[in-house]
C-alpha cells in the first residue's frame, strides 16, 4: 500500500513537471528577497562598469546638443535632405524612435488587460524605454521645422499672425498624438513607480534619500483604502493607453498614407506600422534587458520564460510585417497603376536596393530563427538575433520614406539622397542619449516593478494553499498541480 502510494506520487511528480507552468519568479523567492534584490541596485554604490558606460554614453549623448546647436546656428541645409527628398534621416529617425516606444506601452497596457502576468517583471524598464525613446523621437520633427524658435506655432496658442493651426493636416494630428502619448506614458510610468518609491523611502539610510523618495512616493502607505483606488486607476490608464498606443503609430502613418505619393498612399499603413512598432520595440526591450539582467543577476525575476515569450512576440510581429511587405507588392501590381508598380519595383531593384534587402533580411528572415527553441532559450543568441530587427526597423522607415519620394511622378525631378556627417552624428547622438537616460534610470529608480511581481508570487494569493498561511489548509507540496492551476 505504502509502495503504491510512493509510486503514484512519483508518477504525479513526473506529470507535474510536464503540465506545470514555469513559475514567474524562479526559485520560490520570498517577498523580502524581491525587495532587497531590486532596491540594492539603487542603494549600493554604482559598479565600475556603470560609471564607465555612463561616461561613454554621456559623451555620445552630448553629440545631440552639439549637432543641434550647429544645425540651428547654420540652417537645416546641414542635413542632406533637399528637393525631391525633403524627408530623410530626420523623419526616419523620428518614426524609428516612436516605434521603439510602442513595446513599452504594449507590455504595460495591453498585456495588463489580457492578464499576462509575466509582464510584471519587465514592464517598468519597458515603460522607461518608451519615455526615453519618445524624447529621442521628438527632437527630429521639432528641429526639422527649421526655425525651432517658432516650434510653438505647432500648438494652438494665439500668435501675432492671428492664423490658427490647420486641423485638417495629419502633421498636426501627429503633434497631438505624440504629445498625448508622451504625457500619458509618463503618468502611467510614474503611477506604477509610487509604491516602489515608498519601498525605497522605507529602506533609506540617509535623511536625503528618505526625503527625496518620500516626496516622490507622495507619502504612499500601502493601505487598502489606497490600493482600491490605485488598482482602479491603473486599470483605467491601461484601458485608455491601449487605444492610444494603437492610435499613435496609426497617426504617424497618416503622415504618409494621406498623401498622394506612390508608395505612401496606402491603406495598409496603420496596422502595418503598429505591428512593425511592436516588433522593433520588443527587440529593443530585449537588447536592454538581457545585459542588465546579467549585470545585476536578475535571473530569478526576468526568467528565461520571459525572454522566450518576447521572442515569440517578435516572431509573430516579424511575420506580420513580412506579410505587409508582400501585400504592398501585391496591391501595387493589382492596382494596375504604373506609378505604384514603379514605386515598388524601384524599392527592390532601384538605386536603394541595398536598403530594401537589408530590411527584408533583418525583419522577415532573421526573426524566423525564433521558431527554434534553442534560439529562444539562449540569451546571447537572442541578443544577437534581436540586433537584426533593431537595424531592420530603421531600414524599413528609410525605405518607405526615401525610396518613395526620390522618384515620384516626374522623371525630371528625380534625385538621390545621401546623408551628411551631421545626419549621421545626430542619429548616433540620440542613440547615446537613449542609453544614457536608461543608465540613469537603472541607477536611481527600481528597474523591476516590485509590488506587481510580489502580487503574482504564490504567497501573495490569499486563497491558495501555501505553507505561509496560518489558516487551516491541506498541506501540499509547493509544486502541486492544484497550485499551478491557481497561479499560472
Amino acid at each position: 500500500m505504502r509502495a503504491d502510494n510512493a509510486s503514484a506520487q512519483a508518477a504525479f511528480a513526473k506529470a507535474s513537471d510536464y503540465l506545470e507552468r514555469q513559475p514567474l519568479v524562479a526559485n520560490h523567492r520570498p517577498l523580502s528577497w524581491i525587495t532587497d534584490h531590486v532596491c540594492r541596485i539603487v542603494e549600493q554604490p554604482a559598479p565600475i562598469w556603470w560609471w564607465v558606460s555612463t561616461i561613454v554614453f554621456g559623451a555620445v549623448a552630448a553629440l545631440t546638443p552639439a549637432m543641434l546647436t550647429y544645425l540651428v546656428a547654420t540652417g537645416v541645409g546641414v542635413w542632406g535632405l533637399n528637393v525631391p527628398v525633403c524627408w530623410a534621416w530626420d523623419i526616419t529617425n523620428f518614426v524609428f524612435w516612436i516605434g521603439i516606444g510602442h513595446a513599452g506601452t504594449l507590455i504595460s497596457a495591453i498585456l495588463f488587460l489580457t492578464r499576462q502576468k509575466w509582464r510584471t517583471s519587465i514592464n517598468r524598464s519597458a515603460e522607461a524605454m518608451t519615455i526615453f525613446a519618445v524624447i529621442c523621437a521628438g527632437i527630429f520633427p521639432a528641429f526639422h521645422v527649421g526655425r525651432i524658435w517658432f516650434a510653438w506655432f505647432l500648438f494652438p496658442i494665439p500668435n501675432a499672425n492671428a492664423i490658427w493651426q490647420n486641423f485638417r493636416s495629419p502633421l498636426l494630428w501627429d503633434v497631438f498624438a505624440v504629445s498625448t502619448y508622451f504625457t500619458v506614458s509618463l503618468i502611467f510610468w510614474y503611477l506604477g513607480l509610487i509604491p516602489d518609491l515608498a519601498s525605497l523611502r522605507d529602506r533609506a539610510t540617509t535623511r536625503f534619500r528618505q526625503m527625496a523618495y518620500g516626496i516622490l512616493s507622495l507619502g504612499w502607505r500601502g493601505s487598502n483604502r489606497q490600493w482600491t483606488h490605485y488598482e482602479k486607476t491603473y486599470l483605467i490608464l491601461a484601458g485608455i493607453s491601449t487605444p492610444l498606443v494603437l492610435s499613435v503609430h496609426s497617426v504617424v502613418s497618416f503622415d504618409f498614407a494621406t498623401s498622394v505619393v506612390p508608395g505612401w498612399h496606402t491603406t495598409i499603413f496603420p496596422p502595418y506600422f503598429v505591428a512593425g512598432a511592436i516588433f522593433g520595440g520588443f527587440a529593443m526591450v530585449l537588447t536592454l534587458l538581457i545585459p542588465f539582467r546579467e549585470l545585476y543577476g536578475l535571473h530569478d525575476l526576468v526568467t528565461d520564460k520571459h525572454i522566450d515569450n518576447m521572442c515569440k512576440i517578435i516572431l509573430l510581429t516579424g511575420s506580420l510585417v513580412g506579410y505587409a511587405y508582400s501585400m504592398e507588392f501585391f496591391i501595387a501590381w493589382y492596382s494596375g497603376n504604373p506609378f505604384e508598380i514603379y514605386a515598388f519595383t524601384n524599392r527592390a531593384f532601384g538605386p536603394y536596393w541595398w536598403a530594401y534587402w537589408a530590411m527584408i533580411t533583418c525583419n522577415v528572415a532573421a526573426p524566423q530563427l525564433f521558431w527554434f527553441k534553442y534560439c529562444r532559450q539562449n540569451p546571447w543568441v537572442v541578443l544577437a538575433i534581436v540586433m537584426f530587427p533593431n537595424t531592420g526597423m530603421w531600414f524599413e522607415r528609410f525605405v518607405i520614406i526615401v525610396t518613395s519620394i526620390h522618384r515620384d511622378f516626374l522623371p525630371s525631378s528625380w534625385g538621390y539622397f545621401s546623408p551628411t556627417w551631421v545626419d549621421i552624428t545626430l542619429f548616433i547622438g540620440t542613440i547615446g542619449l537613449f542609453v544614457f537616460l536608461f543608465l540613469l534610470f537603472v541607477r536611481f529608480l527600481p528597474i523591476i516593478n516590485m509590488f506587481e511581481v510580489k502580487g503574482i508570487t504564490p504567497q501573495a494569493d490569499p486563497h491558495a494553499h501555501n505553507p505561509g498561511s496560518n489558516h487551516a489548509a491541506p498541506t501540499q507540496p509547493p509544486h502541486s498541480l492544484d497550485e499551478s492551476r491557481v497561479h499560472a
Partner: protein
Amino acid sequence: MSHPAPTLHGLGAEFPSAAALLHAAEKIHGLGFRCWDVYSPFPIHGMDHAMGFKRSRVSLFSLLGGITGLSTAFALIYYTSAINYPLIVQGKPYFALEPSLPIFFELTILLTAFGTVLGLLFLTLLPRLHHPVFNWDRFKKATDDGFFLVLEAADPRFQPDASRKLLTEIGGTHISEIYQDPELEPHPSRPEKELVA
C-alpha cells in the same frame, strides 16, 4: 505645564501572510468597525470585498476628464477653424468630423488620464507625506513583506484593552500602540487649547 501626552492614533497588529490578513479583515469588518485599515506591500485579491468596499469612484473622475477633453477638442477646432479665422485649405470644409476625429480622440485620452490621476489623488488624499502609522517602527515592512492591520482610536467601537485582545484573537502579532505626533496633531491637552477653552 507638563509635556503634553501624545494622543493614541490606534492599535497596530502584524499578520504573517496575505491570507491571514484577509481573514482578519473579514472579522473586523464583521464586527462593524469603521475607522481601520489594512496595509500590505501589494493589493490583496478579495480585500475590497472583505473590507466591505464598494466599487472605486475613480472612474467617475475619468468620465469627467474624458467629457472635458472631448468638448475642449470640439470647441478648439470649431472655434479656430470655422469661427475665429476661417481659412480655405485645399477646398476642404472649415469644419468636418473626419479630420477632427484624431484630435477628438487624443484630447479625450489626455484629459481622461489627467482626470483619473487627479481623482486618485483626491480619493486617497495624497500627497500626504506624514501619517501617524509611520511612527510605528515595524511599519517599514509594509512596503517590503509585512501585512498590518490598524484599528484607529477614533472608531466608536475602539476600546484600548478589548481591541488589543481582539487583535490577538484574530491572529495579530507585535500589537503596538501608535501615537500621533504631539507637535503636529491638534491635542486637547496642549496649552493653546486650554487657553482657548
